């Protein structure tokens, strides 16, 4: 049973809380993710506008992509604040 307990402890995120007592670390993580996201999104937006041939579907996809991704960033910020 000790073995099972150690497995449980390993996967239990409750034990990770100690690592993020300082939420500043999470802000850095979020900042890094946003940096990568901004680069990839810029590349995607460039492709959509340059090669999309003015397609309505591309326009809808662009709106959908940015709406959902920005919402996810907002959620991530809310979760950091709540930690």
């Amino acid at each position, binding site marked *: *049973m000790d073995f*099972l*307990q150690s*497995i*449980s402890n390993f*996967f*239990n*995120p*409750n034990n*990770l*809380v100690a690592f*993020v007592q300082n939420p500043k670390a*999470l802000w850095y*993580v*979020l900042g890094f*993710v946003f940096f990568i*996201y901004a680069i*990839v*999104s810029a*590349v*995607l937006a460039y*492709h*959509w506008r*340059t*090669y*999309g*041939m*003015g397609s309505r*579907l*591309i326009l809808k*996809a662009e709106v959908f*992509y940015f709406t*959902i*991704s920005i919402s*996810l*960033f907002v*959620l*991530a910020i809310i*979760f*950091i604040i*709540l*930690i």
Partner: protein
Amino acid sequence: MAEVLNLDQGEKILLEVRKHWFVFLSAILAFIGGVIFPPLAYGIWNSSLLPEQLHFVLENSALFLALFVYTLWVLLLWVLFFVQWTNYYLDVWYVTNKRIIDIDQKGIFHRQISNIRFDKIQDVSVEVKGIVATFFDFGDIHVQTASEDSKGFFIRHAAYPEVAKKVIFNQHHKVAEQHQQVRIVKDEGDVAQTSEVKT
């Protein structure tokens, strides 16, 4: 719009040929699976399927930390999904009234554009293999050219291949039947006359 394709004056796009959405289904399922997996794994982990010693309940800070990580995970999947979709959607044939333009989107930074004029086309073949392809109406289209040094155009799993073939053939015939000016020399008195004939 025409700048990217370098369309000639008066050249119009008649048809866009893309891969069928069914080809993209694996990416959609991978995305859905990736989103569902963490909460599903958490549910299974804490279910009666596993010994009670393994169970844990996320609470307070740990819950929000887990949700934060999960949000970033979904964001990563979301971006990857759209990279895949862009590669899928921008891989296209444009059939114009003068030629076929093949845009081969091999990757986000790998793009190849080639074109073939209708007068160079020798044959267009369509292959629909299997029940799924027949049911959803997709297949491979191969445009062969008269030139020996050219391999022609090939698109795998194109949507509505018969429609594409019909449009290409119609346009091919139109180009072939265009009026051409030729000189006809009559026997009587060697009088040269120019007239319009169909070839």
